[in-house]
């Protein structure tokens, strides 16, 4: 299986009160528990079930994912820039693993 790898796109600079768009993607198989492998055996369920975004330590956006979300979940959402800071992204796997990523943004 390919390595699980989070990616994100946040503008480096933004103006005050500008609504920016944040795009994220994580490479993950999102096995729904209904797919079969080459030998016809069921692949056990394993998905990303939670996605959280914090800005300077405060939660700004959250999403609960179900097996109906596609392989390599793509999530885009808006944010109103008010001050410079750091975004912390966190994806939670069914097996308890957490994948994290941080991005900085300057607001002027």
């Amino acid at each position, binding site marked *: 299986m390919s390595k699980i790898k989070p990616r994100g796109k946040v503008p480096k600079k933004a103006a005050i*009160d500008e*609504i920016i768009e944040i795009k994220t993607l994580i490479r993950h198989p999102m096995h*729904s528990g*209904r*797919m*079969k492998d080459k030998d016809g055996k069921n692949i056990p369920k394993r998905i990303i079930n939670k996605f959280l975004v914090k*800005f300077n330590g*405060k*939660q*700004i*956006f*959250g*999403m*609960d*994912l*179900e*097996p*109906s*979300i*596609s*392989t390599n*979940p*793509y*999530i*885009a*959402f*808006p*944010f*109103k820039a*008010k001050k410079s800071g750091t975004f912390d992204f966190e994806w939670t796997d069914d097996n308890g693993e957490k994948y994290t990523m941080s991005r900085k943004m300057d607001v002027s």
Partner: protein
Amino acid sequence: MKQQKMKIISRRSVLFLMGGVASSALFTKFAMAKPNLALQRIKEISKSKVEEVDLFLDVPEIAENGNQVKVSFDIDSPMTKDDFVRTVYLLADGNPAPNVAKFSFTTDMGACSATTRMRLSKTQNVYLLAEYNNGKFAMTKSKVKVTIGGCGG
């Protein structure tokens, strides 16, 4: 002689195919009779206090590949402390499970929209249910035709 043999096989396979078509037609009829799980779930979440309004839900009319269907929504809301959208639910009535995703919004976001990609196993309705901070609910739905289903197999 050889030709004749082939003919018999093809006739048999045609009969077999016809049987398959009939049984699949029966199966879809059976599936239609199932209760709409997505609507049941909406009732559970909203306790029947839901208005059907025109929220902006962007899904393709026809999805060629049910494995990757782009879904985006945009709800008109000032997103201030007194008036904002708290939670948005995405549901589908033809998938094995009605829940697709639940989005939690905060006033820091300045707008209420998001984009993701979902699986659709067959042609079905996609529902969007929004919960406002004052306890009100609003919903909308949109039908997506699916050419190739995207749920296992």
